[in-house]
C-alpha cells in the first residue's frame, strides 16, 4: 500500500501549480475564460511547454505519459488553479487520434501549435452513446456527416474536430477541419460549441470504435474527478480562511459550532472524493475501469454540488459575488457534474454494468 505520488509526479504537480500561481491569477483567468475566444494562446503555449499536453499520451504515441495517474495528477492542479483552458477536449481528442492511426497530428498538438476537440454528445444524448443519432454516409472516397453535435468542450478555435457518428458498422469517428460552429461561453468559464452538420465532408478514422470512444470518455471522467478534487480542496481552504477572518457578534464566525460541523463534513467528503478518484485511477485499464470511473463520477457529482453550495452559504453574501474567487470554484464544481454524464447517468451506468455482469454469470 502506497498512496504517495512518485517523485516525477510530485515534480509535475509542483511545476504546474507554480506556473498557474505565477501566471494565472483569478482576474487573468476570468478575463480569458469568460470572453471569446474563451482561452489564451499564451497560457496554452505555457501549458504545452510544461509538457502538460504531452502527458496525455504515451511515449510510443509521441507523448511522455498517458496513464490515468498522469492525467489525475495534472487535473488536480488544473482544478486547484481553476484553469479554464480547453484541456479536456485535448485529452480525449489526442488519445483518440493516437489510438486511431493519426499520430502524425500528435506532435503539433503536444507542442501546443494546433488544438483538437471531441464532438460526442448531442442535444438528446448526455452520457449513453447508444443514443447517438448523427449519421455518417460514405460517398466515393470520402464521408458525409449529418446531424447535430453538442457540448463540444473547447471547440472554439480548435483546428481539428473529432466527430462521433453512426455508420452501418456501429459508431465511428470522423475528422473535420475547422468547421463553422455555434459557440457560447460556459456558465463556469471556457467555450463550448454546437456543430450542425448537413452533408459535412469528413475523413473517417474508424467506422466502428465505440470501445475507443468509451475509453477516451472514461479518461476524461478521471480528469474531471481529479479536477473536482483540486477545486474542492481549494474552495474548502478559502472557506476556512474566510471563517477565520469574518467577524460577527464580536468574534470570528469560525468559532460557531454550526459552521464548524459543516466544514468538517465538507472535509470528510473531500477525503471520500479523493479516495474514489484513486479507485478510478487504480482501476483504469482493468476490468473494473467502467465501474470505478462511474462510481467516482457519481460521488464527485453529488459532493461537488454539496461542497459548492455549502461554501457559498458559509460565505454569505460575499459568496454570491462575481468578484469573489470562491464563487467561480463553486460554479465549476456544480458544472463538472454536467460534463460526460452526471451523477444520475453514472448510477444508471453502474446498474447496467451490474446487469451485464449478472448476464455473464448466468
Amino acid at each position, binding site marked *: 500500500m*502506497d498512496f504517495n505520488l512518485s517523485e516525477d509526479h510530485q515534480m509535475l504537480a509542483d511545476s504546474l501549480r507554480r506556473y498557474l500561481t505565477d501566471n494565472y491569477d483569478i482576474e487573468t483567468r476570468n478575463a480569458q475564460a469568460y470572453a471569446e475566444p474563451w482561452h489564451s494562446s499564451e497560457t496554452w503555449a505555457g501549458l504545452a511547454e510544461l509538457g502538460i499536453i504531452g502527458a496525455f499520451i504515451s511515449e510510443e504515441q509521441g507523448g511522455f505519459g498517458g496513464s490515468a495517474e498522469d492525467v489525475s495528477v495534472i487535473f488536480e492542479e488544473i482544478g486547484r488553479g481553476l484553469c479554464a483552458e480547453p484541456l479536456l477536449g485535448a485529452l480525449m481528442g489526442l488519445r483518440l487520434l493516437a489510438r486511431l492511426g493519426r499520430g502524425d497530428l500528435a506532435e503539433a498538438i503536444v507542442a501546443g501549435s494546433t488544438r483538437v476537440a471531441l464532438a460526442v454528445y448531442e442535444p438528446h444524448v448526455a452520457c449513453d452513446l447508444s443514443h447517438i443519432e448523427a449519421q455518417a454516409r460514405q460517398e466515393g472516397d470520402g464521408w458525409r456527416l449529418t446531424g447535430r453535435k453538442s457540448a463540444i468542450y473547447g471547440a472554439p478555435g480548435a483546428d481539428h474536430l473529432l466527430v462521433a457518428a453512426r455508420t452501418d458498422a456501429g459508431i465511428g469517428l470522423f475528422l473535420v477541419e475547422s468547421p463553422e460552429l455555434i459557440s457560447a461561453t460556459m456558465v463556469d468559464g471556457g467555450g463550448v460549441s454546437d456543430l450542425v452538420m448537413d452533408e459535412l465532408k469528413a475523413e473517417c478514422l474508424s467506422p466502428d470504435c465505440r470501445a475507443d470512444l468509451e475509453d477516451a470518455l472514461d479518461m476524461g471522467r478521471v480528469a474531471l474527478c481529479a479536477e473536482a478534487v483540486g477545486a474542492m480542496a481549494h474552495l474548502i481552504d478559502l472557506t476556512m480562511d474566510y471563517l477565520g477572518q469574518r467577524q460577527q457578534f464580536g468574534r470570528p464566525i469560525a*468559532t460557531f459550532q454550526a459552521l464548524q460541523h459543516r466544514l*468538517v463534513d465538507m472535509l470528510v467528503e473531500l477525503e471520500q472524493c479523493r479516495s474514489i478518484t484513486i479507485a478510478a485511477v487504480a482501476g483504469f485499464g482493468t476490468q473494473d475501469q467502467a465501474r470505478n470511473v462511474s462510481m467516482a463520477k457519481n460521488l464527485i457529482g453529488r459532493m461537488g454540488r454539496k461542497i459548492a453550495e455549502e461554501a457559498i452559504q458559509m460565505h454569505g453574501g460575499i459568496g454570491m459575488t462575481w468578484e469573489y474567487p470562491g464563487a467561480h470554484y463553486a460554479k465549476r464544481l456544480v458544472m463538472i457534474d454536467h460534463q460526460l454524464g452526471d451523477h444520475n447517468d453514472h448510477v444508471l451506468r453502474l446498474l447496467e454494468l*451490474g446487469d451485464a455482469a449478472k448476464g455473464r454469470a448466468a
Partner: protein
Amino acid sequence: MDLDFTPEERAFRDEVRAFLKDNLPEELAEKVAAGKELTKEDLLRWQAILHARGWLAATWPEEYGGPGWSAVERHIFAEECALHNAPRLVPFGLNMLGPVLLKFGTEEQRREILPRILDGSDWWCQGYSEPGAGSDLASLKTKAVRDGDHYVVNGQKTWTTLGQHANKIFCLVRTSTEGKPQEGISFLLVDLDTKGVEMRPIRLIEGGHEVNEVFFTDARVPAANLVGEENQGWTIAKYLLTHERTNIAGTGFSMKDMERFHRLSRQMTRDGRKIADNPVYAARAAEIETELEALRITNLRMLANAKGGAAGGIESSMLKLKGTQVRQAIQDLYRSALGPQAAPMANELSENELAVPVEAARAAPAYFNNRKLSIFGGSNEIQRNIVAKELFRR
C-alpha cells in the same frame, strides 16, 4: 501509487481466512448473520478460540499476550472477522482497559488484570457516562472520597454496555472539585460485587437489553484500584479517544450488510418485480456502495499514513463519522426494502414462519438499535468538534 497489500500482508490475510474457516463455529456465524443476540457463553466461546490462537488482544504487545500485529494487520484481521460473521469482540477489557493499563497502570496491575481479561475470568464494563454527563463527560459527578486505604464511591453511571455479563467496571470518578472540571477526575477499577454497587437494566428502543445503569452507594473500593495518579483520569480518557481505534470505520460490517441487501434484493419480489430490478432501490444501493468503496480506500489511506503507528484523533474521528453514516444508510436501505414485511418482530419461534428470510427477520429492530452508532463512542457531533478544534488551531 499502490492500493494492494504487500505479499506478506496478503499471506497474513490468507492465514486469517483459513483460521476463520476452520475455527469459527458455524452456529455462532449464523447467529451473527441473522443479527441475533449473542449470549455471554457465545461471546466467551469465541474469545477462548481466539485466545488459544494468541489472536485475542490485537492491540497488546507480545509480552502481555498480544499477537504483535501492525496497524495494517489489525485492520485485516478485523475486516476478515466481520466478513466471516465472527462475533464482535467486546472491547471494554481488550481495547480499552488493556491499553490503559499498558500505558498508565503499574506492572502489578498489568500482571494481575491482563491475563484475566485474556482467559475470560473477568468481564469488564465501562463506567463513563452519567445521567447528567454525556458529551460533556468532564461534568461527571460520581464521587470517590479517600478514606484510609479505600475510596468511598457515591453516584450513578449509565449506558453500561453488557454490564449484565460483567463482574468488574472501570470508572471515571470525581476525586476533586478544585480547578477545572477535567482536573479532578480519576480512573478507578471497581469490583461489581462490592457492597453498595447495584446494576439495573435499561431497555432500548427495539426492546433489547444491551445497556444498564449502575448505582454506587457508599461503595468502598481499595485505593490500590486507582489507575495512574489521582486526578489523572481525564488524560487517560482522552488517550483512549485518540488512541488508534482499529476498525472504527466498520467497513467490514458495512460490506457484509451490503452483501445481505443484495441477497435480499434478488430473493424478494415486491409489486411484481425483484427489489434488485426496482430502479429506485438499485440506484440508492449503488450510491451507498460508492460511498462505501470510497470509505474503504479512505481507511487504507489513513492506515498508510499512520505507518504502523497510531492513527491520530482527527483521522479516527473522520472515519467514525463517515463509517457510521454509511452503516446507518445501509441499515435504513435494508429495512425499507422489506416494505410491510419489516413490521413483524421475529423471535426464535416465529423466525422460520415469517414471510422473509431468517436473516432479514430482525431488520427493523437492528435499524433502530444501530441509531446508537452515531451516538456512542463520542457522538458524531463530538467527533466533528474534535476535527474542527484541530483545523482551526492553525
